């Protein structure tokens, strides 16, 4: 099977997973959610195979253009769902995360995204490509979990649900923030130093990573030192994910800079 076939299979399974999740939610059949989770896991396996095939055929890391990095980010979000989905006991996490995943995969599949594997420009020929991009996107995937949990928190009605969502958001940040710091900022600085001779250039993408980092630093300080929990915490986590999304997406299209790849 080719990479694009496997990717399409993954896409179809993600959509099915989303449909079953939504039905479970609206029909109040909690058992169906288990089936939706299994569909997501099978889709994830197919997606993993697609990423491996792409790496094998292109000879480089599968995140060097927008199509590839969208595909990898959606893969990482499904991974975060697999890690947190069962233990969090939050029924709505699955459907809403899968909604984001389907949105990202649809965007990746849209005709706007060139899908061809182009040979790497000299600046990207480095093993730091693997470390920098994969770890950053993994961190952002966990921010997505915190984002969904925080949105659900704001909408939740019972105290019991709220406590669970608040704890889930924090746990997701506790994984995402160190990963984002390490991948986005530390590995990014090391690579920039190796490629350009300066570890920090105040390039818009760098500044937006720093802004994202500051927002999550705010999240932790208000929470741990000042005891903010609940709604205010949730709003900061939402803002943090939006900042991460802008760093990933918006900077490329709206602001010019060194980071013109993806």
């Amino acid at each position: 099977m080719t990479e694009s076939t496997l990717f399409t299979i993954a896409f179809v399974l993600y959509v099915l997973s989303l449909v079953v999740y939504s039905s479970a939610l609206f029909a109040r059949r909690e058992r169906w959610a288990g089936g939706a989770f299994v569909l997501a896991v099978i889709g994830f396996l197919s997606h993993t195979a697609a990423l491996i095939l792409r790496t094998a055929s292109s000879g480089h890391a599968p995140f060097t253009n927008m199509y590839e990095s969208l595909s990898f980010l959606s893969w990482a979000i499904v991974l975060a769902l697999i890690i947190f989905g069962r233990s969090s006991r939050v029924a709505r996490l699955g459907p809403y995360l899968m909604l984001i995943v389907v949105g990202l995969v649809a965007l990746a599949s849209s005709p706007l995204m060139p899908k061809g594997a182009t040979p790497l420009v000299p600046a990207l020929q480095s093993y730091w490509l693997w470390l920098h991009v994969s770890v950053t996107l993994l961190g952002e995937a966990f921010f997505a979990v915190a984002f969904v949990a925080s949105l659900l928190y704001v909408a939740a009605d019972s105290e019991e649900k709220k406590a669970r969502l608040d704890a889930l958001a924090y746990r997701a940040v506790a994984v995402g923030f160190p990963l984002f710091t390490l991948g986005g900022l530390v590995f990014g600085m090391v690579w920039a130093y190796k490629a350009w001779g300066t570890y920090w250039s105040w390039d818009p993408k760098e500044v937006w990573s720093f802004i994202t980092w500051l927002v999550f630093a705010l999240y932790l300080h208000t929470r741990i030192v000042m005891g903010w929990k609940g709604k205010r915490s949730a709003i900061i986590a939402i803002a943090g994910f939006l900042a991460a999304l802008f760093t990933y997406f918006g900077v490329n299209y709206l602001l010019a800079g060194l980071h013109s790849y993806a």
Partner: protein
Amino acid sequence: MRSAWKFFSSVKLAIVLIILLTVASTVGTLIPQGRSAAEYAARYGSLAGLFTALQLTRLYQSVWYLALLLFFAVNTIVCTLARLGPKWRRAFRPAPETDAKSVTSMRASARFRLPLTIAPARDRVAGALKARHYLLDQSAHDEKVVIQARKRRLGWFGSDIVHLGLLVILAGGITSGLAGRHAELALADGQTADVPHAAFQLRLDKFDTEYYPQGGVKDWKSTVTVVEGGSAVLTRIIEVNQPLTYRGISFYQQSYGWDWSRAQIVLEIRKPGDMTTFKTVTLKVGERAAVDAPDVTHVVVLRFVPDFVIGEGNQVQSRSDEPNNPAAQVEAWKGEERVFSGWIFAKFPDFGHGGEGDPMTGAKTAAKADAPRVAVVLKDYSAAPYSVLEAAKDPGVNLIWLGCLLVSGGFFLAFYWPPREIRVVLEASQGRVELAAGGQASKSREAFRTEFDGIFESIRRPE
């Protein structure tokens, strides 16, 4: 002094500073940084002056942004120190808890009797705790033994290590800003240049651009030789992502270009009617070449640009260094009479055959209005490539990496190395021992409770 300490030890200040830094940093991405005054004037009109005065155009180097960072640093130092003392005592010199009641009021607790005397009971408890890698502090008062057990004590200091790391990174940034040196060396093949701030030279032996078979640049490679005291010391290939470091100075493949001012040009001198070629000549910019045809004695190349464009004031400019629209300004002479003058284009050979003027520039050529007697075609062009290497000496870099290491390690400790503490009070009564125990962990409490229950189960019912 005390009020300054109080001011800086406030977490509220930290939060205000984080918000201010976020907002300021955002502004800096909305206004392009470090452009020319003319560009700002064109973009922002009357606001440009205000932006420049507020240093918004060099925001990240501005006095107020740096002051913000400095405030943040002092705030971090004071906040960290103010909280370090109590944490230190808790981790390394805990006050012994002797009261059985307060011990069992901790999150996890256990209370039972052991059919033992105090010494073997103490040994059993100590053995069980040590088996789970706890460090013990014991104290005995009369018939009472108090055991304090703790593990993963470093976890208490995770956030402090992150803060220290951030300060080290900031110190590294300041060092880079004050003592870092960056210079560009543009070298053609065979050329040698003095390396700034160093007692050696760098020679470019060869510059290569490699292409993929399907097009697109694969790599830029500069083969360079370090020359020290007149003799070659080492030869190395510098590529993008593969810098060379010699005596603390690193050389990066940064850019490349062609020396178009000394381009070599190939011209065809033709007869305008049937376009038969009189002669093909090769010459450099600024040179003249003999043609010796009936209507043309010689030609001159006045100028060459790789990417022809008409700029301000109808001036010819090159839009870029890439040969996107190569053009040459040439003249053809018959003795003392100029028979052709104008710009000719490699990609548009129909333009500029002399005569009425140039269709792209609109500039009048000096040739007469009657039919041109000669056509000049820009057949080929080439220029020597040069490599641009960045020479950088940055003494702040090691601090940056140290800071990054501290931040990463601190994060690990803060999130994934939660300290655990268990307190046990043993009291002898009527030939048996009353055991009261309590414990707490700052994170992963369920895992801790499992461990706690396991420990006390093994004390109550040893194998």
